[in-house]
């Protein structure tokens, strides 16, 4: 996307910033708009922010956070985002994108913490957040339902996730079904982020009716893979759910890490080519579909790789090296913008990874596109 914005706003470097968010003048007239991307970042020891960047890695806005942020739910209708604190998280900030100012801060109820992920309903009136209810004898995953239609963001209900360690949550293309990954790893904030139940893990991906909270479907893997924690997901163009896992078993094993759940609710695990499998380090951090739904990007910050898959065939496509790379968001067609913990911003497409910018800020695991 080449732009002639500088001709319209001939005031030097500032034009770069404006270009990122203003309608663009096209050479032949008319206007073009550009997406912005949002991520949690670290700017210093224990100093964290929410940051908006454009496709070229330029900063469009920043807002300080009280602690390390994680994923961001986007409400395009009202130009808001909700940034969730990293687990065990005790805040989510609703932010007005245009001004990068906080509209409200949500805290989970006593005995709950956020897991770092959430999603808005299609109309933006509700916000669903994955939470850990750690009050009882055993921790359990719940979805906190928050009223986002006004200004007070009351918690108006909760649904069971029928598992522990509820992690990423998606809203299905039908606009009604919630899909939740229960990572299966028990944690309790009294023990920080320590994993407490590796031998007894039972991860699952569930579909829940967002109106009734009913469990519609549960997908589990072979019991031999009970240490394969399913955590992050995306929908492909055909409406299948792609998921990525982290392996909590022995490091010398090479379990599959990426899978696809079809309409029948059955999971098909994808395999890496033998030479590629060790590169993932048994860990997938983000799972994101391209704009056209044809390509799935799965990143491994531990392996320092981003892997691409053909959504339709399930075939492995390529692996591109990006140390500590985790954030991935779709740009145009089948291309992605990828971010790394060392401040790098890259463009991934056509089997190549091209540098876009290198920033001082360290990008957290998830990058989201705001349309």
């Amino acid at each position, binding site marked *: 996307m080449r732009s002639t914005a500088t001709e319209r706003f001939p005031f030097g470097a500032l034009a770069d*910033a*404006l270009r990122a968010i203003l309608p663009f003048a096209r050479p032949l007239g008319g206007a073009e708009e*550009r997406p912005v991307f949002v991520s949690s970042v670290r700017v210093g020891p*224990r100093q964290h922010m929410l940051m908006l960047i454009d496709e070229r890695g330029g900063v469009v806005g920043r807002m300080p956070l009280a602690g390390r942020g994680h994923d961001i739910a986007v409400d395009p209708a009202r130009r808001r985002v909700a940034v969730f604190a990293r687990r065990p998280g005790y805040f989510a900030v609703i932010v007005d994108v245009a001004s990068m100012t906080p509209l409200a801060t949500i805290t989970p109820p006593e005995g709950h913490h956020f897991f*770092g992920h959430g999603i808005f309903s299609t109309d933006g009136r509700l916000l669903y957040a994955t939470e850990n209810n750690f009050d009882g004898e055993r921790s359990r995953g719940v979805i906190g339902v928050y009223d986002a239609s006004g200004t007070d963001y009351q918690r108006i209900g909760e649904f069971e996730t029928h598992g522990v360690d509820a992690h990423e949550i998606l809203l299905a293309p039908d606009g009604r079904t919630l899909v939740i990954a229960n990572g299966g790893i028990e944690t309790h904030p009294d*023990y920080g982020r320590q994993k407490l139940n590796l031998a007894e893990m039972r991860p699952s991906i569930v579909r829940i009716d967002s109106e009734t909270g009913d469990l519609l479907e549960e997908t589990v893997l072979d019991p031999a893979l009970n240490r394969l924690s399913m955590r992050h997901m995306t929908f492909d163009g055909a409406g299948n759910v792609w998921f990525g896992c982290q392996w909590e078993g022995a490091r010398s094993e090479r379990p599959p890490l990426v899978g696809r759940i079809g309409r029948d609710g059955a999971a098909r695990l994808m395999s890496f080519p033998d030479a590629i499998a060790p590169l993932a380090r048994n860990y997938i951090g983000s799972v994101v579909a391209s704009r056209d739904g044809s390509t799935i990007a799965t990143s491994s*910050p531990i392996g*320092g790789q981003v892997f691409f898959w053909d959504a339709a065939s399930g075939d492995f496509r390529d692996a591109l090296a990006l140390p*500590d790379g985790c954030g991935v968001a779709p740009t145009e067609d089948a291309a992605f913008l990828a971010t790394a913990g060392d401040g790098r911003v890259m463009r991934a497409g056509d089997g190549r990874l091209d540098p876009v910018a290198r920033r001082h800020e360290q990008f957290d*695991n998830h990058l989201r596109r705001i349309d």
Partner: protein
Amino acid sequence: MIAITKRLLLLSPLLIAAKRAFAQSTDAPVKPGPSAEALALVADKAISGYFIPAYEQLQKATAALVAAMTESCKNPGATPDPAVRAAFEKLLQAWARADFLRFGPMAEKARLERFSFLPDPHGTGTRQLRQILAKPDPALLEPGAIAKRSAAVQGLPAFEALVFGTSDDAETAAYRCQLALRIAENLNTIAGEAVTEWTKPGGWRELMLKPGGANIVYRDATEPLVEVLKAIVTGLQQMRDQRLLPALGKSFDKAKPNRGAFVRSGESFAYLNASIDAIDELVERSDVFSLTPNDAATLLAATEATSNEFRQALNVGKPWNGAFADQASYDSLKRAFDVLKTLEDIFNFRFAEAAGISPGFNALDGD
């Protein structure tokens, strides 16, 4: 796509942010990392100066515990034999040097969990041990039998409960002693396996010393170093999240001292002190700060000052349970908890920045 009007933009703080952002250049300077030789040297020093000696010491300490128990079980008494206590104390000292190395052979075959099933928030070990003692089964005293049972009953916490627990049931005294002896033997076996798996040809030492090529664990010279860095940070986090946080609770009124580590034997403070000593020792023996010659002195001084601050905050002059019953001591322990974060910043942030090494903001601790 987001459409923001010019009017809105001009009114918004966004403009100010944009101005500020573009006053500086977009691209951050990239610091060249240390040479492969320098990295390999640190890895080598960490391995031969710290990791392997730590496991050798663990093997020795477990052997000494087996010897003390064998002797003690000839005449099992209600109170623990002083020789057993001394051997157990030494073993905890040795374990504090190794418990945070959550990689390598100890991380395979559930050795870490079997050696010490901590944390155990659901009291699994206590429950299972109670079941065992309710119906003492002689078959469990066969050599090697305990290793086939749940991890919660075959390691240090189970040993501690059997030897230092409050049970004075004379009927099971001999059984408890024998079971504790079998656990000590199991610990010795696990420690021995760790030493072998580290030092044998093609073992973990070689894996760490020869990164790259067909090595799927360590693919380049940076990765063994990141492992060292990760060990340091994990050690600090374990002290905080496994031992102090569960006991401190949310506030003084909600403190739960019994959730500390090795409270029954009265070794909680000694264990924490040994843990901080271990971190200092690993930093010193690996010479990790040599990777940032210009900042080495500053970083080392900061590490020493901060770990001393931790030791002082920990030294409340009271036994563990008493410390949680006294507001001033509690506050001091809370301070110790906070100081660990400062220490973590040194390795996670200051050192990494200065040395041009990315320990992996995301990779270090997955989510």
